[in-house]
């Protein structure tokens, strides 16, 4: 059978999101009445709508043309780039801007396979200095360079 698997996955994903928001909303938030709508009214309404849309997208995909392949997934890039942001998040409140920037730039630099160690170090030094000049001294962003605020 021909089917657009990409759209089936897409539809099911939306359905899952709809169930997530809908069930939590329905069970934990008061719905209220249409006069005094509770905090759950609108989210449950939207979840219902999203669920129907998800089903429609998945349903329409059955029998439709086959999807193109997903292509390569740049795992190394995804892991290192996300790691850079998370590393920045872990370091900046405790140790300040400089260590956080060094780690974030080094990690993301190696996300690309074209990067060489020497270039990465040069890039880290240059970008860190540039960011500090721009944000700390240029814009006066109140993040300490070293240490906690």
């Amino acid at each position: 059978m021909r089917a657009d698997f990409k759209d089936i996955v897409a539809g099911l994903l939306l359905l899952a999101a709809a169930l997530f928001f809908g069930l939590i909303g329905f069970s934990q938030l008061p719905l209220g009445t249409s006069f005094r709508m509770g905090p759950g009214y609108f989210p449950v309404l939207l979840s219902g709508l999203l669920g129907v849309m998800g089903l429609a997208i998945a349903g329409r995909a059955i029998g439709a043309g086959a999807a193109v392949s997903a292509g390569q997934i740049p795992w190394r890039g995804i892991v290192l780039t996300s790691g850079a942001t998370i590393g920045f998040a872990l370091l900046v409140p405790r140790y300040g801007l400089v260590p956080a920037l060094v780690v974030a730039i080094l990690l993301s630099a190696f996300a690309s396979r074209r990067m060489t160690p020497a270039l990465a170090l040069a890039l880290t030094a240059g970008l860190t200095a540039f960011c500090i000049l721009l944000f700390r001294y240029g814009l006066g962003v109140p993040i300490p360079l070293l240490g906690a605020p």
Partner: protein
Amino acid sequence: MELTSHLLLGLQVAISPTNLLFCFVGALLGTLVGVLPGIGPAATVALLLPITFTMSPETSLIMLAGIYYGAQYGGSTTAILINLPGEASSAVTAIDGYQMARQGRAGAALGIAAIGSFIAGSFATLVIAWFAEPLTTVALKFGPAEYFSLILLGLVASTALAHGSVLKALAMIVLGMLLGLVGTDVNSGQLRYTFGVGELADGLGIVAIAVGVFGIAEIFRNLENEQEREVGVKTVSGLMPSAADLKASAAPIARGTAIGTILGVLPGGGALLASFASYAVEKKLAKDPSRFGKGAIEGVAGPESANNAGAQTSFIPMLTLGLPANAVMALMVGAMTIQGIAPGPSVITDKPELFWGLIASMWLGNLMLVLLNLPLIGIWVRLLSVPYYILFPGIIAFSAIGVYSVASNVFDLYTLAAFGLIGYLLVKLGFELTPLLLGFVLGPMMETYLRRAMVLSRGDPSYLVTEPLSAALLAATASLLCLLLLPSVTRKRSEVFVEED
């Protein structure tokens, strides 16, 4: 003539050396923070507020206003160059602007954005001078029912932004709205979908989501085929828009200016809706709508003009009634009060030099911005010749600092990382992300207005259609929805628009 004498008074105030200098400082600073992802005009104005105490009221407001509209200019730059909209409204510019940049036409896109913004800004400034009072009355006609219907119309119209399936675009809007509801419910004070995470009480950060789904997800996409091809720009052809570009953009700039001028007056989302509405209109009117999303210059010219016109006219409710339309305006109201000026209808009569000086400075500021930005285009375009693998660690660093500087909130950085992944997943599944962002911004507003309307009508939904203006907006929404979802149209659309990249 009265208006002429008022404008002359304003010009006298605005071209005093101090005011001219701070107008330039504001515009320059605004451009800079607009270009940098994350750190936006609201944060900048908040940081600079204490400095303005020592200035005269005119100078201080002239500089703060300069930051605000300067940021609107700057926000489009990164949207075009690296698909990184600084603000929700430049997300629209990113659609076709970024594609133009990839085709080597970044100069043309940046140039037309600056020119369109200047024309729109100048026109909107004149409108403020002429029609501030009557337009205020229009703004007051918009109650909860009208806002609800306007936002609904805006959301449905925004599916025109999508170049794929309408249904998928609608689903992204709804998903965005749900994400926008995370946080504290204004009406009841109850927490929704926060799972005990204290930082979520204020909701997910808009900056973190915008930078995540556009900026970070784009990096992942560019890393996909690294071995085979050099990503980014092919050859750069011309730094300025060609005569043909200008000709194609003239009408969209005019229409965008008109749309932005009108919608900007409405507080809360007016200016944002304007850029979306303009894009939808241009795509509808285009002879060959399939070019949109692939680098159509009209898709940059219209929304950028609408955005800037809206940014200018959003000053109207503040200047005439003391009602701030957004966070930056609220800070400017604060700046006025610190200076001992009660914002409200009396400003125009009691402080004519402030009112008209500010208006005249807006025009001067727009002129400065275009003079500042046109030469900068060369530098920006050269930035694109930096190999991508050197460029993107910088994007990550800037995004992280920008997102963190908004509220010194580490959680926003985790949101950034998570939405980079979510954005990439959604793109892989053939979804588009602009409708998601639009739903995220407008969803909570829509809920607030709906609930307010329902309390006012004591739960009677017919209130939405018995108010004439609201009824007209709903009728327009319904006919648009029919048009979009009619099977024949859908089939034709998918034949024309399906494209894989």
